[in-house]
């Protein structure tokens, strides 16, 4: 028995070792020559290069040092982009008008789909994309009829000309298909869209519209995606999956992970000159673009350290710290603190349902503002790498120059009802001092630079004034705890995202910590995305770490529309938009917004009016704006160069936006 047992153990051990040995051998991708593993000498200079497995392709007995990706493309010809939103339930569903479409930022709207106009986030304005020009009003100043042209020479990836007929067909298809999620919006806006000739479109609207390019152009993306008539006219658009994904972008989809949508491989079109990118900017650099989902943040960082990713999307500051130490070829937006780009288009903070007691009282909302230790919240959320905003506008550079900075004198003089001046313009300098004490290097030194980095200032952390505001409104404090006017313990349930939108998730806990120190019982309620958004939309919340203040252009009329009380919906009904989730009604704001609707975006009245709205929102406090969104979007310079940075930017590091297509000509192989 003893002998037999030893034999079994020995055999088992041998099998295990054989398995391990077998597993160690890399296997060639199906379409590639046989490969074996060596350590890349070329990467030996990086900290982790020793771990990088490089495959040598063996072709007909000739060894050629060609490092391959695991989808069978040469690594030095492939730009690998991290997919932000994970994999897709059905990787074959690429009909952008149906709800189950593959996530657009899996490369689809960046490389394949085309839009009429695209935002330039640096200039803060829409620019022609597939359209050759901006729409011209042909209704004699009524803004109900426009004409524009599309670029000549653009072809679909199957070689067919893209003409005005495709645009007209797309519009008709949307209007005739109520099953499309976009149908309701589009039909409420557009009466007709007709091809006048091969490259000219005339569009008639149901109502006067001064912001047509904002309505039909792309911010993050555009819902109006022109589709090829010669393909779609043969299909039922309600069920058509568009799996071949014929588009007019500079790349074509050549392969994908059909099982779970973990990756999509795009190849540069031979006729890239026949795309809007080719015409407008030039030839895209990489021959291949691989959009790939790596999984959890830990795995994404490991892949980045191993040079398996070139563009990493949206990681935490802690992960960035690890990555920059482990792989020196990775670069962030700034070379030094704060590393992250702070120009993402939304301001994070705390929203209130202004119909629920005691949050229906603006003094209470102000008390909570003054009970927030914003510096501590910034440190706890993103280690201080955040730019504050005292108004309900994101602190995007172009917006900050238009609103926050010009409003500074008003903010300093702003008084609460009791005459208290709550604004603190020393936030930036005190953050610099605090971070210096922590040994952080590369901090801004002159005042303007400090403001550009950390923001114009925020509201004072003054628990005495906060307590006074509450006491004046009947609240009481016993044993360090705050009680509501009816004598019950005050408990705030604060909604927070559960493991998504990490900045807002952390912000919720940091704010809760501040308020707890002040003596309020706060419970952070983490919710999955469907429940989180549903709660805001239906008003089923008291307070939540939402972000209803978005926009990245000086024309903020559209971004502010949700505060117009004509769109008000009571709690229980679906709100107009994120701002509408606050259920805040203010006649003065509504009058200003109504009057701005018919004013063209370039009119100075737009900025004047929006400034007035921001002042009224400061007084009313339906939302406590805190920080802009900081994005850590590191790029890998091992294989590619030409990435944007704070010293070399032409758009913004928004790899998941549709405008990414215009960055592609800037990417060139690293020297």
């Amino acid at each position: 028995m003893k002998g037999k047992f030893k034999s079994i153990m020995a055999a088992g051990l041998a099998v295990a070792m054989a398995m391990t040995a077998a597993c160690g051998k890399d296997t060639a991708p199906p379409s590639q020559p046989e490969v074996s593993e060596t350590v890349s000498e070329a990467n030996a200079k990086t900290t982790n290069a020793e771990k990088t497995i490089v495959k040598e392709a063996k072709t007909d007995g000739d060894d050629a040092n060609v490092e391959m990706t695991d989808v069978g493309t040469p690594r030095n010809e492939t730009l690998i982009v991290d997919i932000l939103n994970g994999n897709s339930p059905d990787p074959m569903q690429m009909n952008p008008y149906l709800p189950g479409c593959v996530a657009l930022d899996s490369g689809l709207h960046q490389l394949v789909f085309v839009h009429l106009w695209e935002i330039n986030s640096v200039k803060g304005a829409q620019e022609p994309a597939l359209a050759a020009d901006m729409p011209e009003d042909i209704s004699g100043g009524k803004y109900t009829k426009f004409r524009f042209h599309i670029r000549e020479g653009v072809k679909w990836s199957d070689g067919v000309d893209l003409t005005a007929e495709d645009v007209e067909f797309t519009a008709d298809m949307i209007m005739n298909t109520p099953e499309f999620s976009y149908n309701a919006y589009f039909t409420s806006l557009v009466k007709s869209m007709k091809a006048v000739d091969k490259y000219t479109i005339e569009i008639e609207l149901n109502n006067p519209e001064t912001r047509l390019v904002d309505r039909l152009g792309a911010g993050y993306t555009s819902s109006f995606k022109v589709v090829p008539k010669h393909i779609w006219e043969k299909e039922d658009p309600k069920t058509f999956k568009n799996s071949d994904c014929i588009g007019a972008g500079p790349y074509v989809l050549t392969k994908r992970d059909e099982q779970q949508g973990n990756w999509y491989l795009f190849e540069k079109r031979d006729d890239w000159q026949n795309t809007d990118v080719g015409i407008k900017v030039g030839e895209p650099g990489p021959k291949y673009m691989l959009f790939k989902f790596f999984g959890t943040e830990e795995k994404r960082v490991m892949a980045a350290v191993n040079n398996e990713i070139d563009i990493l999307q949206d990681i935490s500051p802690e992960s960035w710290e690890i990555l920059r130490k482990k792989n020196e070829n990775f670069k962030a937006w700034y070379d030094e603190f704060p590393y992250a780009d702070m120009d993402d288009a939304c301001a994070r903070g705390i929203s209130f349902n202004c119909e629920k007691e005691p949050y229906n009282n603006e003094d209470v909302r102000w008390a909570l503002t003054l009970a927030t230790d914003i510096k501590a919240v910034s440190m706890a959320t993103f280690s201080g790498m955040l730019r504050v905003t005292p108004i309900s506008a994101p602190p995007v550079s172009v917006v900050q120059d238009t609103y926050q900075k010009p409003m500074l004198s008003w903010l300093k003089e702003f008084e609460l009802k009791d005459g208290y001046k709550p604004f603190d313009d020393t936030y930036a300098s005190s953050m610099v001092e605090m971070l210096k004490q922590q040994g952080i290097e590369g901090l801004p030194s002159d005042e303007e630079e400090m403001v550009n980095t950390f923001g114009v200032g925020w509201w004072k952390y003054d628990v005495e004034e906060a307590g006074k505001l509450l006491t004046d409104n009947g609240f009481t404090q016993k044993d360090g705890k705050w009680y509501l006017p009816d004598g019950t313990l005050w408990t705030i349930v604060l909604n927070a995202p559960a493991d998504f939108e990490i900045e807002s998730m952390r912000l919720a806990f940091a704010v809760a910590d501040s308020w707890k120190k002040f003596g309020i019982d706060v419970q952070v309620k983490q919710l999955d995305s469907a429940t989180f958004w549903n709660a805001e939309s239906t008003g089923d919340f008291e307070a939540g770490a939402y972000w209803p203040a978005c926009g990245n252009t000086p024309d903020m009329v559209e971004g502010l529309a949700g505060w117009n009380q004509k769109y008000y919906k009571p709690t229980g009904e679906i709100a107009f938009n994120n701002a509408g989730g606050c259920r805040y009604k203010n006649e003065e704001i509504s009058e200003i917004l109504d009057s701005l609707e018919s004013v063209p975006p370039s009119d100075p009245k737009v900025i004047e009016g929006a400034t007035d709205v921001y002042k009224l929102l400061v007084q009313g406090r339906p939302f406590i704006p805190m920080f802009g969104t900081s994005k850590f979007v590191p790029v890998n310079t091992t294989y590619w160069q030409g990435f944007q940075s704070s010293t070399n930017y032409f758009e913004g590091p928004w790899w998941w936006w549709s405008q990414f297509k215009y960055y592609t000509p800037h990417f060139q192989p690293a020297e």
Partner: protein
Amino acid sequence: MKFLKFLGTRIITFVLVIMIGVTTIFFVPRFMPSDPVENMIGQMISKQSNMTPEAIQLYRESLSDTFGLEGSLGEQYVGFLKKVFVTGDFGPSLAAYPTPVMDMVRRAVPWTLGLMLTSTLISWLLGNFIGLLAGFRKNKWYAKILEGMAVFLYPIPYYVFALALIMIFCYVIPVFPLSMTLDNMAFDWSTISTILKNSILPALSLILVGLGWWVISTKALTTSVVEEDYVYYAKLKGLSQQRIMMRYITPNVALPQITTLALQIGGVFNGALITEILFGYPGLGKLIYTGIVQADYNLIMGTITISIVSITIATFVVDIIYPFLDPRIRNT
């Protein structure tokens, strides 16, 4: 006659359990605080901030109609039962509309079965083997080492353990890929080897973590059986150690373990969510998760119904074969 009566009772229980389970899974998602239509509207208006209330209402009606959510709850329930029991159709997934739920399930099932069945069986066999050794030959060094390893692995949280495996075998000694990359699904050696290579680590993590429980439970059972009179009697009769183990101890230890194994096999249709997420492995766990996170009623109902049916079938099969395995039950 006795057996037929026994079988009849079991069949009635089987049908009842499935009916109750399917009814529950129809109603529970509808009482969740999220709603697929409102969820989609929320996402839409956050991007298209200028939709008028009228446009939102049109959109809501259109989505309800598209997703088959129109009509009263009762009408939806009757429609659902018809679909499930007559056509086996759970409708389109709302998260991957218009892809039918059953297409998605069909795509995921082979992966889940391949991984979960293999790892459950290997874990069961190894765990019982080590547990038997540890209980029967508890003073031997190899029994102590094997038991010690299993007991050491058992309390480690699965997430930490799996992540440690990834760090060791995908990063420090990169013999496995960080994420699963299937280039095509042709039935050839290249595809098979890619699948195997990508499955070894997730399977290993499930086997090693599952092993601990089997070792501990089998050892406890073995220790108890070893003390039984009939084992003493066998020893006194002078039977060999091997014969005592194989004929007297193993069958008595195996019986409850087979029941647990059957239930675990039924449960493989739940998938292994954390494994699938961490290793980028396709399977039912991720489908269930997608269904819940995106309030995809049809996907939740499709995947969970399959899980309910498989667990019920497993229990039913164990009930039926148990009398053949255990004479005590057969005789009562």
